[in-house]
């Protein structure tokens, strides 16, 4: 089955979102402050649906955000919960990597808070 392509270019207010089938790696990076988060993230949830029905293991989900607004923070939580579901359902091997600038305490804290909330292997990585 052909995996749905996910390749969204970043802008000054929306993140770059890509899935690399070779490395089985999803990456969400940059700034997330779209005007309409629901609309913007719709393709991501559609892709996740597709991915769920055809997971190849192991998979990595990377988050490398510079800024995100509170509405995006809710959406990211929804994505992480979806990943938690995937992990518990079929013993899928999913790892989350949360990147933060070493001088960005708020981004580290945001990662720690997500880590506490979802039961998925979750690495906090500074750069």
């Amino acid at each position: 089955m052909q995996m749905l392509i996910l390749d969204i270019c970043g802008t000054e207010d929306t993140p770059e979102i890509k899935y690399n089938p070779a490395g089985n790696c999803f990456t969400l990076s940059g700034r997330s402050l779209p005007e309409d988060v629901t609309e913007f993230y719709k393709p991501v949830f559609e892709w996740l649906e597709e991915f769920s029905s055809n997971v190849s293991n192991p998979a990595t989900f990377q988050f490398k955000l510079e800024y995100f607004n509170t509405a995006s923070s809710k959406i990211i939580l929804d994505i992480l919960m979806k990943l938690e579901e995937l992990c518990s359902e079929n013993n899928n091997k999913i790892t989350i990597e949360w990147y933060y600038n070493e001088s960005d305490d708020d981004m580290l804290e945001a990662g720690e808070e997500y880590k506490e909330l979802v039961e998925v292997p979750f690495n906090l990585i500074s750069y």
Partner: protein
Amino acid sequence: MLQTKTSLNIYEIFAIMADNNILLIYQGMFDQDMVKSVLTMTEKKLKQDNVMEPTRRKLFNIMMEGLQNICKHQLRTADEVANPFFIIGRKDQVFNIVTGNMIENSKISIVKDKIDHINSLNQEELKEYYKTARLNSVISNVGGAGLGFIDMARKSGNKLDYKFYELNDHYSYFILNNTINNN
């Protein structure tokens, strides 16, 4: 504040801005393009002024929430006096991000109660409150998560300062002032 029928000339306005260390001021209707422009301009200005990155990040976050709040909640009006505004100012090591927008009188108590509750919490309690609120939040039809004020208070570490000025029986002007320490 609302007595805008003044005869200030451009030079006087400039002098007021300089005296009050106003970095940027904008009044008018807000949309996403405006938000992006204001954020970009302010980011550049703060870099020029050699403001350190951690402070710049906090300012960016609080501006982003404040500006998008206005985008989502501003009331359309033909009355120029009641247009929303945004100001970022600096006095020594303290930054202020001030926003103003018109609000229906019937909604004042909701906003007031929300901010008063946030102001009654310490940082640890705010963190818990944010976590619970985010779990329970549903993205509204205007695209908000209802978390903006909590996030502002967490990022600044200071209380949210606010005022409502009654315009008439139906509307008031809501002013929100965020204080951010440069450290």
